[in-house]
Structures are given as structure tokens and as C-alpha cells.
């Protein structure tokens, strides 16, 4: 629907609100929480790997290890773990852990669950991608599971955190329909399955026998409301207590609304521009006359610096993202292990940018096409258009191409193909809990054999940096790894392998009277909502 109609909706709603009474979160119904979410749960926990599903899985099924708000590993069904050697990990299962059918959680159940996650046929977003670092696993005794990794892998905990644990009989024999009917929706999490109406709602109830910290709410209902304005209307109308993934355009209104409270926090995701620096001739760059250029301007660090200096990150955050963001000087989010503290802020300096561009040999500028998605990140095509305008001020004739991700992503990730000259992308640190995911996937040279650089679509290649990244990736000690990653990040940013824009925010809104702890990977967790 049009943005204007949606704005009008909220404007009218604001105008009609008088007090909080009646629509506030009241203690009389304190035990029940209704959440309006954008994504529905896939009840089969090993079929579709995505962040929303992981959030649902950890609440209903439980995992050996769970990720907290800062995406650090915490014990859940496993009470402890240790490194036997560089590539062998042992997890000790909590002796009190029980499934919802009172069966104890044993190592066999864990092994069966992981094997199912790895081998489930016809899974389009297979969990095999989530646990790729695991070579094999086995039960040492009923309480202990051993994991062997392909190489020393500090991110094993994050991989283990992706897989839901279900009873072994269900793992071996259940059909999809069993999960949807709820018959097989048995896990060991803090909440139990009650009811699922496809496309409408998922109802969970507190698991009183949960071994760890019990769930805060007696009953949680997840209502699926995919339309953003409808979700906001549901909150204002009092039909739900909390909504996630609030688009920035609603923030100002929701803040001024008496009945609601906006909760914001930094996410682990950073938006950035990726330039083609690998080729001598780039397909989407021409000179001012429209003729192909003899050499690729983006290979010159001065041109990349000029582009970075021409971008007004403050305006991007304040006007395009309506304040839901933070200007970035690197693609790792602050607070994440491997964040390079000493890097200076990236400022706006159009005069200096023009000077650099002229010095590099392009006083007249050139023609450049920027590619981005229009349906993947919040405001992605608007950000792209703003970047286009900002770079036009620099003297570069910009062409903005906003495409659906189903069309753009296969094109750019085909490393043998045309790819792009300049593109807008985002990446997060959620899968490793540190800068490793970003370094391995977006900065390291593309290496199909060894699985590096899948998203390094600009083909930036710095062999010394590659060695540093690989050494960091194999460092099991956290603080040493953080230091090495921070050094690598600093080198990559100084070389402008990618041009950072801003860190996104997670925006959640609730009724007045509720407090919500933001999770950096945008997980919607019922227990993160509390009454102060």
C-alpha cells in the first residue's frame, strides 16, 4: 500500500489517542503476552534456516547453546563445554534437561537432531549451511556429545546454536505434516506448543519443567502480521502487546503516541557499498561521453576515498533511516569482538573529494551504475537513490538500478559473471559472534575451494590480509582472536575494500508498561519482554 495512506493511518490514530488507560499493559493480564511478528514460524525446526526461525526454535525446541542479546554463547541444554584439542569439542548435557514429553535429553537425541539438520531432503534453506564447519559428531556417553570440526573453528559454538534438539524418534521418523499438526512439535525449550493456525497465530505455554531459567510468561501468542502498517495498527489498537521489525517511517509517530513505547538498539548488521576493484575494465563504468574507459577508476584508492568523502552518512541516518541507525567507519558493529576501536570517523568533505577525484585523473567525473535490492533491506532502494544523488554532487553521473534480490543476488554471486561495478549490500556478524563472518565472506579473496570470499563480489584481493584473516579464523582464544581481527578490519577499511555507510538499528515497539531487551540479530524473544 502507498506510504501516504499508511502515514495517514498512523496520523489519524495519533490524533485520536487521549490517554493510555485501557490500552496499557495492565497487571491483570500480566501473564499473557501477544506479539505481532512479521515472519511466521516454520514448525519443522530443521527445514528452513533463517534468523526468525532460529528465534522461534530456541524458545520452543531449545538448543545446546543459545545466543544472548550481544550474540555471545550461553549454556542452554548443554551445561558446559570444553575443548579437547584444536578440532575436538565436548558438550556436557544438563542432567535435568527434559523434553516436553518428560523424556530426558540425551546425546543420542542431539546426534539425531544434527544429522537430521544436515540431511533433511528438499530443504531450500538447508541447515547444512549453518553447520558446515562440523566434520562429524558422536555420543561419547549419554550425557556427552563430541564434535569434530574440519579445522580449528572458534565459531563452532555459533554453529551449534543454530540446531534445535528434538527427540531421536521424532528426528528419525516424523513427517512434515506431523510438525504442522503439532504432534511432533516436541522440544525441550522454555515454552511448549499449544496451537498453530497457519498464517494466523502460534500459541505457546510456559514449560514448568524447564531445567534452566523458567519462561517469564504463562502464555505467549505470536500473531503473524506481515503488512507493516497493519502490524502498527494492531499495536495501537491494543490487539497485540509488542511488535517487531518496525519500519523507520513509523518511529516518529510511535514515539509521540501515548500508548506505545519504542525500543531501539544497535543490530549486528552494517550497510556498505562494495566497489569492483578486481578488474581493469568494469562493465558498468563509462567515461563522460559514454565510451568505455581504458582503466577502472574504482581500482584507484583516491577515487574510492573521494566516493567515501562525498557520502553524508549523518543525513542518510537522520533523513533516510529516520534516526534508526548510526554512521559507520567500518563494517563491524561496535561492541562486536574484532571491532577496530582506533579507526577515525568517516567525514563528509565534498571539496576534498573533488580534489582527490581530479588528482586521480577524473576532473570531469565518469558514468557509474549502482546496483541494489529493493526488497531485502529496510529502505534499500531509498538509500541507493540517496547515494546516487550524493555521488552526483561529486561529478559522477549516476544510474541507480534497484532490483528484486531474486534477480540481483544470483547475478552478483556468480563470480565468473558480470557482477557489478558498485553495489549496496549489508552483512552481519551474527553467524560467528565476531568480525570473522564479515572478514571471511566479504574481505578475503574469493577462494571457492576453501570457502572464502563468497560475498566478496568486488574481488578485492590482498594476500597479506588474507593470511591475517585466516590466522585469526583459527585462533581459538577469544581476546587474541579479537586483536587479530581488529587489525585485519583496520587494514581493510583503510584500503577501502568496501565503503561503510551505517550500522542499522533494531526497532521494536510495545505497549506502555513493557520493557524489551533488544537482540542484535533482530530475534524476537518473548522473555526479552519484561514488566519493569
Amino acid at each position, binding site marked *: 500500500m502507498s506510504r501516504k495512506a499508511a502515514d495517514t493511518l498512523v496520523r489519524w490514530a495519533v490524533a*485520536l489517542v487521549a490517554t493510555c488507560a485501557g490500552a496499557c499493559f495492565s497487571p491483570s493480564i500480566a501473564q499473557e503476552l501477544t506479539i505481532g511478528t512479521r515472519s511466521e514460524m516454520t514448525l519443522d525446526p530443521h527445514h528452513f534456516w533463517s534468523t526468525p526461525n532460529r528465534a522461534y526454535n530456541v524458545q520452543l525446541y531449545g538448543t545446546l547453546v543459545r545466543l544472548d542479546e550481544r550474540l555471545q554463547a550461553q549454556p542452554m541444554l548443554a551445561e558446559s563445554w570444553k575443548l579437547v584439542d584444536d578440532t575436538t569439542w565436548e558438550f556436557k548435557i544438563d542432567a535435568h534437561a527434559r523434553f516436553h514429553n518428560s523424556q530426558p535429553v540425551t546425546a543420542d537425541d542431539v546426534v539425531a537432531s544434527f544429522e537430521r539438520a544436515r540431511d533433511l531432503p528438499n530443504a*531450500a534453506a538447508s541447515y547444512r549451511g549453518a553447520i558446515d564447519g562440523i566434520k562429524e559428531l558422536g555420543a561419547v556417553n549419554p550425557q556427552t556429545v563430541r564434535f569434530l570440526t574440519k579445522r580449528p573453528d572458534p565459531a563452532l559454538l555459533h554453529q551449534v546454536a543454530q540446531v534445535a534438539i528434538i527427540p531421536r524418534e521424532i528426528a528419525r521418523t516424523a513427517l512434515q505434516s506431523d510438525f504442522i499438526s503439532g504432534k511432533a512439535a516436541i522440544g525441550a525449550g522454555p515454552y511448549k506448543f499449544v496451537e498453530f493456525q497457519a498464517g494466523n497465530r502460534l500459541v505457546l505455554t510456559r514449560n514448568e519443567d524447564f531445567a534452566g531459567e523458567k519462561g517469564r510468561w504463562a502464555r505467549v501468542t505470536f*500473531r503473524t502480521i*506481515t503488512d507493516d502498517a497493519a502490524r502498527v495498527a494492531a499495536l495501537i489498537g491494543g490487539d497485540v502487546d509488542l511488535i517487531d521489525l518496525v519500519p523507520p517511517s513509523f518511529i516518529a509517530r510511535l514515539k509521540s503516541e501515548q500508548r506505545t513505547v519504542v525500543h531501539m538498539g544497535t543490530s549486528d548488521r552494517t550497510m556498505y557499498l562494495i566497489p569492483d576493484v578486481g578488474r581493469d575494465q568494469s562493465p558498468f563504468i563509462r567515461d563522460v561521453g559514454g565510451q568505455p574507459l581504458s582503466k577502472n577508476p574504482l581500482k584507484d584508492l583516491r577515487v574510492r576515498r573521494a566516493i567515501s568523502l562525498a557520502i553524508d552518512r549523518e543525513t542518510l541516518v537522520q533523513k533516510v533511516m529516520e534516526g534508526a541507525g548510526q554512521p559507520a567507519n567500518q563494517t563491524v558493529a561496535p561492541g562486536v569482538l574484532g571491532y577496530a576501536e582506533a579507526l577515525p570517523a568517516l567525514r563528509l568533505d565534498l571539496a576534498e573529494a573533488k580534489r582527490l577525484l581530479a588528482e586521480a585523473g577524473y576532473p570531469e567525473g565518469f558514468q557509474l551504475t549502482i546496483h541494489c535490492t529493493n526488497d531485502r533491506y529496510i529502505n534499500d532502494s531509498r538509500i541507493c537513490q540517496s547515494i546516487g544523488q550524493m555521488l552526483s554532487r561529486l561529478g559522477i553521473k549516476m544510474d541507480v538500478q534497484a532490483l528484486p*534480490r531474486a534477480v540481483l543476488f544470483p547475478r552478483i554471486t556468480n563470480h565468473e559473471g558480470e557482477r557489478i561495478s558498485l553495489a549496496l549490500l549489508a552483512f552481519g556478524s551474527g553467524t560467528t559472534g565476531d568480525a570473522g563472518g564479515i572478514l571471511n565472506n566479504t574481505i578475503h579473496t574469493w577462494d571457492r575451494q576453501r570457502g572464502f570470499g563468497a560475498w566478496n563480489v568486488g574481488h578485492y584481493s590482498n594476500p597479506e590480509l588474507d593470511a591475517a584473516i585466516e590466522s585469526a579464523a583459527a585462533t581459538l582464544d577469544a581476546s587474541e582472536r579479537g586483536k587479530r581481527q581488529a587489525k585485519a578490519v583496520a587494514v581493510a577499511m583503510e584500503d577501502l575494500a568496501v565503503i561503510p555507510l551505517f550500522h542499522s538499528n533494531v526497532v521494536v515497539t510495545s505497549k506502555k508498561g513493557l520493557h524489551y531487551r533488544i537482540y542484535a540479530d533482530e530475534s524476537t524473544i518473548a522473555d526479552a519482554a519484561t514488566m519493569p
Partner: protein
Amino acid sequence: MGVFLLRRLFQAVVTLTIVSLLVFIGVFAIGNPIYVLVDPSAPPHVVEQTVKNLGLDLPLYQQYTRFIQAALHGDFGTSYVHAQPSLRLIAGRFPATLELVVAGLALAMAVGFPLGLIAGHWPKRRFSRAISTISIIGISVPTFWIALMLIIGFSLELGVLPTGGRGATRSFLGVETSLLTLDGLAHVLLPAMTLSFFPMSLIIRLTRAGIREHGKMDYVRFAHAMGLSPMRILLQYMLRNILIPIVTILGIVFGTLVAFAVVTESIFSWPGMGKLIIDSIKVSDRPVIVAYILFVVTMFLVINLVVDLLSAALDPRIRLAGD
């Protein structure tokens, strides 16, 4: 009659084959769905393996042949997102959409018919002119705007009706329906009102036009001359003639509403087929898109057949091709 039905069956098969081909080509052109579904951190070799497993790397004609072979066995593919056979998924959501459309059409008929009769019988009155104007508005105004205004008015301002979702259901003849519970009715009222505006306006205009047209005909004048009361003429003699074009239109409108209640379902988060197809298109869930289009085409073919049979029953002058 037998020949007629056989011919229709043959035409149906041809139509479905052509449509399936068109849809396949169209869906192929949107792009590779894997990159929409797969988490960006998935290693490339896993992505490639998944592409192979799902047969997405095969050329178009091979994918199409595979699809046809499976379809002839009743297998229309498994949804990438929901892990269910796509036809079963759609059939599972169909009752909710049907419920909504039936409620909407019932409302449209209950309100539109009487209004249309009034407007047709007393065309010069101010009330009738008002009805005509409203019917024009009803046809022109976009659904989503009506939906939003209703939400603002009834849910946010008056707070008497919920903003969306489907209410509690009760089983009736083996099917779960929310029309039999108070909570269900509260939830279905606003979406049904939204859906009903367009057909209501159509019915008003058609009824009014029908009365105006038939009112001038000889049989009506003759009945007048014989001294029959206007009400009796209207209800006993004119109604049946007026109904024929309305029945035809309503059949098509019914099909359109079922297929395209998309906007209403999205805004009200009504868990029906329309919302399913929109969500599936957004994530490129190809099997569901293809199965949905074929389902809808089949539905239209059946509706057209029923409408033709009904028209023949109502109007003895109509002969079905093949009689």
C-alpha cells in the same frame, strides 16, 4: 448436455496446459529463488548442492517436464518455505478465503439487492439518486483505502472491532468456520465489509438497470393493465428476468474475489490464499506460485461452467452448445 460437458472438459485441459506453461516461464524469469531463501552466510558449496537437489540448475524445458510428470501424479511440488505439498497448503488456506468471500458476497447481496430494487422502482426520488452515487464510489474506490478507513474508524477510534486476524472457529460439517462464533464474526466483519463494496455497487447498478429496462417491456405493461400490484409484478415476474445477468456477473465476481482478495487479506492479516500468494511471491516460493495459479484457473473454469448451467436453468431461451 453430455457433448456440452465433454467439450468443456477438453477446453479446460487445453487451458490448463497453456496456463501452466505461461506461469512456468513467468516464474522462471523472476530469478533464482535460492538466493532469496538461503541465509547469506551459507557457504557456496551448500548453496550449489541445494540448487542441484531442487533441480533449479536444469534448463527450463527439463524443469517443466519434471513438473508435468509430477503434476499428473497429483504432486505440484513442495513449498520451499512451509515444507508442505503446495496444493495441500493452498487447499488448507482455501476455507478461510472462501469464508471471507462468502461473507462479503452475502453482505453485498443483502444490502445491494434491496437498494438496487428501490433505486430502480423509484428512480426520481432523492434517495435513489444517492444510492446511485454511492454505487459509483463503491466501484471506483480502491480496496486498501476502504480497509484502512474501516480500521481507523472501527478499530482505532471506536475500538469495537479487532484490527485483523481470524477469530475463533467452530466445526461445521467437518470444516472449521469462524462464522459460527461471536469472536469469529467480529473478526470477519471489517474484511467482509471491505470486500463487499465492489460487488455491492455492481449489484445495485445491475438491479437498477434491470428494473428500468424490464419496466418498459410489454409483459410488465400488460400486467399493470390487468391490475396486478406493482410489488407482485416486481417480485414474481420481473425478478427472474433481472437475475440472469446478475447471476453471470456474480459468478465471475466470486471467482475474482477468491483469487484476488489479496489486498484485503494482507491488510487484515486474514490467513487465506491471497495472503499466502503474496507472501510466496515475496520469497519466490515457486511451487506455491505455480500451484496457486493453476488452482485459480481451475476454479474459474468450474465457476464459468456452473454459471452457464445456471443461466440455462433460469432462461429457457438459452441453449447450451451441443444440445
